[in-house]
């Protein structure tokens, strides 16, 4: 098995993804959960760049464009997500994720 640079990049991205995932799964603070999700998003972006960089057609720039869009979406997501957190906080004076259980069946 040969570890190409692409492999390294993918390992980096999966590690980052899992750090984000673990953070999102274990932390009870809604902000940190959101940040974990942001990390996961970033890990995905790393994949795009890696495949663009080492893919067959780096001239196309598709990966870069995709990441540009993803960053834009991520910014919007962060803004709305944190606004939601603040709204929840105002509503029940807590940002513990366990406290937000209105959807309980």
């Amino acid at each position, binding site marked *: 098995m040969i570890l190409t640079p692409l492999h390294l990049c993918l390992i980096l991205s999966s590690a980052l993804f899992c750090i984000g*995932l673990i953070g*999102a*799964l274990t932390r*009870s603070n809604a902000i940190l*959960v959101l940040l974990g999700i942001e990390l996961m998003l970033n890990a995905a972006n790393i994949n795009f760049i890696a495949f663009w960089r080492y893919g067959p057609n780096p001239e196309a720039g598709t990966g870069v464009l995709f990441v540009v869009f993803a960053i834009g979406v991520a910014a919007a997501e962060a803004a709305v997500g944190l606004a939601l957190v603040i709204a929840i906080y105002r509503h029940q004076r807590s940002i513990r*994720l*366990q406290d*937000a*259980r*209105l*959807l*309980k*069946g």
Partner: protein
Amino acid sequence: MSLPVQLLWLIPALPLLAAGLGALTPRSGRKLASGAAILAMAGSFLLSCGALMTALADPAAHLVHNFAWLDLGEGVLRLGWLLDPLTAFMCVMVTFVGLLIFIFSTGYLHEDPNFTRFFCFLSLFAAAMLGLLVANSLLLLFICWELVGLASYLLIGFWFHKPSAAAAAKKAFITTRIGDLGLLLGMLWLYDSTGSLLFYDGGQGVLEATALGGLVAQTTIGGLAVSTAIGLLIFCGAIGKSGQFPLHVWLPDAMEGPTPVSALIHAATMVAAGVFLIARVYPLMAVDQGLATTPLHALTVVATIGAITALMGAMIAVAQDDIKRVLAFSTVSQLGYMMLALGVGSWVAAIFHLLTHAFFKALLFLGSGSVIHAAHHEQDIRRLGGLRGPMRITFVTFALGMMALSGVPFLFSGFWSKEAILHAAQGWNVSHLPLYAGLAAVVLTAFYMTRLVAETFFGSARSDEARHAHENSPVMTVPLVILAVCAILLGFIGTPAFPWLQSRLMGQTEVHGHSLFEGGGLMVLSIVLVAIGIGSGWALYGRRPRTTTSALDPIEKISPGLFGALRARFGFDELYAATVGRLNTATAALADGLDRYVWDGAVRFLAALGEFAGFVNKEADEDVLNGGFDATNDKIRGTARLYSAAQTGGAHGYMRTVAIGFVLLVLIVMLGGGL
């Protein structure tokens, strides 16, 4: 400086910009709104002069700039700008007169709270009219035509808090709309037959030989050539807009708007639009002339309508008491003249009269505006009088306008243009009736104008308003003076000895000195007729001026029946109210009845039926079906409770589930080699 045809759009664009600015300006921005409108108009005037230079460089050419507007799939709808001497002269006239009226308005309306709105509308009006002038497409012309209608509606109803003004605005809008329907139909027919609406398009336009030949070759109902039919439909639009005989009723009522609006509508823009339209599509109107088989020539209709209107307008004007209404009927009459000229084949004379009439009628309207403004909005000539002294400038300029309109010989522009028309009528080989109508109208015109001046300016003041009148500020009198000068001088661009305008319009670069009025007999006759008109007018009104407001009119003393009929405007309004209005009301009542009783009843019945069915259904449901359903539902609810336990509401749990699901999925794919 000359303006290339590609930039012709700038002429209407400037006032349009000013209108937009005026719409955005707050009420306090009076200076800004009026300044922008006047500046835009002045800019348009300069551009129009440039366009005139361009057009005169080669009068025979129709410079066009066409461009695609709408891609309709099968074909491309194209619009364009057209620059020829007709457009250029009209643009110069409209912008110049408009500019003066704008300036006059700043004085006339300076106390109005809606000053900025007024200038917004004025600019919109001017923009629409200029757009109409530069259009090289019947469609674009129609768009601007309708915009003119809208703007006139807004302006006539500017004082909409007055019920009469609101009604007049509505009347003008609806009446002209009747004519516009004809224009729309004609346009559609034209597009259907030729596939184009461009006037000139390098041989492909509807006014060029190819299309015209095709149009005249086809016939339609009653053996009418298609071109004739289309021409008559288009003429319907002109009838509405230019206040011709059956649809003239809106024009006098439009006097309810502010006087500058009246001046703008009657002198320069709206009513001129109809005449301009016919002049523009003249090749289409005239193409059936050589046709012997057709039952009707389009131009014959035009001439007949024109003659009727000219005579009728002049007659009604004799018995009106409102200073603006007299002028309004005078406009109707003069427009009839122009139509008459168009009909008898001399569109050049029609345009000449249109130009000169624009100036002196604007002068007369602004002069009447000056009188009204000075006399605290008193418009009844019976209550005016004796204004000669206090309002010197207004009197002199108004008198000059009156003489121009009456056709006082040699010095005044109205004389030359009217002579041109009469001469053309004389040369018409179909009938001489238009000539006689025109000659009769000459007498009447001189008569009622003399009456108007005598009643307004001579004698003694007959009301407090008239007594307290004083001359207006220069912002109002200076435009009057300028217009008066034009009213005199403008005639000399088209005298028989020097027919410069005519030759340019006909597409010649040189002035041909041939006399347009061969044989001086007609000229002598008309001079005599003018003298009779003025003389009788002066004899009846000037020598023994009215002393009280309630005194009977001299004509009323002579023939009360005739005077009553004239004063009631031959009862056209009543006639329309009795026929069209009544029909409309009846139709509405019928529709209302249908709606209220027939349809509504049916719906109610259906509803009742449904209600009954529901009742039956319910009875059956409650006892029979529910039992079974309840049992089933209980089971389902129990199962659902089990499932809903998984819905903890905690986000962590969900995420965890997703993660584990993902792991399982990947494992299945990797180990199982795919699903």
